[in-house]
């Protein structure tokens, strides 16, 4: 399945803000980075013709990309506009009272999370209200990038959050996606240039299944687990459990259409599948 005939929800630019992160800023210790996240109950179309009663941050699943540079002060105002108590739990290094575990935010209330951004790497955030399984699989999660003091080399930067949806409540996912819409990147392949490195910030927030994975066709890439050190693995397939994440860097050798998908065939055929359209 490739191109316009693919059954995928959303228009050609529906996922732009989730796929392309805001730009990295230079290292400037003490600078305040402000974000506002609002929990919203929203029904979204997750696969063609199938709607899911999601709990979202700012109306999308996954939530918006939060980005800071190491040593920035991150100030995230959380407004609970949903119908259940929620929190935001960030991965990273921060004080216990900013952990999103004890400060349960009731509907209509708000809370300000403030802490220095560290360590650099690819992180994530998600609701930590109980029952945890319900609050995560309903859609309350997103990616959280902390850039290193010494900027990474320029690249075409992309964010991919792997997830699943249990639309009929039987404890098993009916659909799998990257960035929230089944088969989206099969309908609209991601356009990249061969001349420039492609950097993917990849995270797994799939509930119910033990692992998820990404496999790239026709090429290899460097995979930096968590992206907080310079260590990498040279491969074409990576596996992540829920909460694991990392950074992928691809230098495409050829132009053309290259598929990428979960190497759990079932996930791929239930929506977690797409293409890169590599051009010169």
């Amino acid at each position: 399945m490739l191109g316009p005939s693919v059954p995928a929800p959303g228009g050609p630019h529906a996922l732009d803000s989730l796929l392309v992160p805001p730009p990295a800023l230079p290292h400037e210790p003490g600078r305040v980075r402000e974000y506002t996240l609002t929990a919203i109950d929203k029904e979204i179309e997750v696969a063609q013709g199938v709607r899911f009663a999601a709990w979202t941050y700012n109306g999308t699943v996954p939530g918006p990309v939060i980005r800071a540079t190491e040593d920035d002060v991150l100030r995230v105002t959380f407004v609970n506009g949903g119908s259940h108590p929620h929190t935001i739990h960030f991965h990273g290094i921060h004080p216990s009272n900013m952990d999103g575990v004890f400060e349960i935010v009731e509907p209509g209330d708000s809370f300000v999370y403030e802490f220095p951004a560290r360590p650099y790497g690819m992180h994530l955030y998600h609701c930590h209200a109980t029952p945890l399984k319900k609050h995560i699989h309903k859609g309350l999660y997103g990616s959280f990038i902390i850039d290193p003091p010494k900027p990474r080399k320029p690249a075409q930067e992309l964010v991919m959050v792997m997830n699943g949806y249990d639309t009929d409540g039987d404890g098993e996912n009916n659909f799998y996606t990257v960035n929230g819409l089944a088969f989206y990147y099969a309908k609209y392949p991601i356009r990249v240039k061969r001349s420039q490195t492609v950097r993917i910030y990849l995270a797994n927030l799939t509930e119910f299944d033990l692992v998820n994975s990404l496999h790239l066709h026709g090429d290899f890439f460097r995979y930096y687990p968590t992206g907080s050190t310079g260590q990498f693995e040279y491969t074409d397939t990576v596996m992540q459990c829920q909460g694991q994440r990392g950074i992928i860097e691809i230098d495409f050798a050829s132009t053309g259409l290259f598929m990428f998908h979960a190497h759990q065939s079932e996930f791929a055929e239930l929506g977690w599948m797409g293409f890169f359209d590599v051009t010169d």
Partner: protein
Amino acid sequence: MASDSVAVGGSGDARWRLWALLPLLLLVGAVSLFAVAGGSLVGLIGRNAPQPDEFDIRRIEFKQGEIRIRVTNPQRDELTIGTVTVDDAVVPFTLDGPQTLGRLRSSTILIPFDWVEDEPISVGVTSSTGIQTTEAIPAAVETPSASPSSFLGYGIIGFLVGIVPIAVGLLWLPSLRRASPRWLSAFMALTAGLLTFLAVGALSEALQLQAALPSALGGAGLVLLGVAVSYLTLTFLSHRFSSDSRSSGAGLGGLALATLVAIGIGLHNLGEGLAIGSSFALGELALGTFLIVGFMIHNVTEGLGIAAPAAEAERVSKARLAVLTLVAGAPAILGAWIGGFVTSDVLGVVFFAAAAGAAAEVVVEVGRYIVRRTGERLSSPYVLGGFLAGVLVMYATGLFAG
């Protein structure tokens, strides 16, 4: 004065007849009131439970490079087809009907698919609300099209499992004629035993099938309706037969009873033919020689069941025997055709329920007949032994068809 009181009584009757309309009018009023204001009642109690949003998958056909799924909306609210999966993979599909189905409306989903012969496969239809209805098929086999040859094939299957064994069983007739009244009562009881076995089997089949139907289709009530209609129809028929023969001074004659038995068995064979035909068409049954032979052995005893009451009649023409054979056996052919080409589980429920009701009614008639005509009491060892033998024979031969 007398004529006055009659007139008063008459107008009183009319008044009370009119009065009989009052409850109906009140009901109409209450229903419309509820239809207008019912929403606020729901508001008082709490929220209405959501609809299950499950499809009724009526039929799955496998054609060269294609799977066809017939789905029906069994619930009150509209139901929209969202995505379709085969073996847990989303597949492209087209529809030959509407995508949003009103109550009891159907569409056929056409999926281009390279399915694997003889292997299990499952299909799923997900509603726009995310509820997935799945159906597993034990083995995918090409669904025969309604060609003359497949028509003939299903016809032959019905002929083999319906008509042949009954005709064979009827050959016991001359021997039964020479049996003593006691032994004849034993064979009549055997007929009752095997019919009871058929009734229980058909009822269990009907209940099993209805359990798999969406609840909105009325499951157990549908079974009761089928049982009641067929039971009462046969009661009516048997009274007709007996009053006919009573005018010639005889009560329900042996031949009339044989006809009733044949009708009961015929209804059962309709269900059996349907089950065999649809199982074969849907790849649930390996149609081997062994299975056909099993059903033949099983059904020979049905022929014996018709022969026993017929043995009581003074003379039975060959034409009459042929008619009895057709009444009891030919429905298997019809059933096989229906099952092979258009089956639905709803029809299965109705057929098996009707078979259960008919068989039960005939058991009652046979019991009456034994008491009235053979002079044996129902507690005689011949009758008891015969009944048990009937059940046992059906059980034992049923193992062949299992």
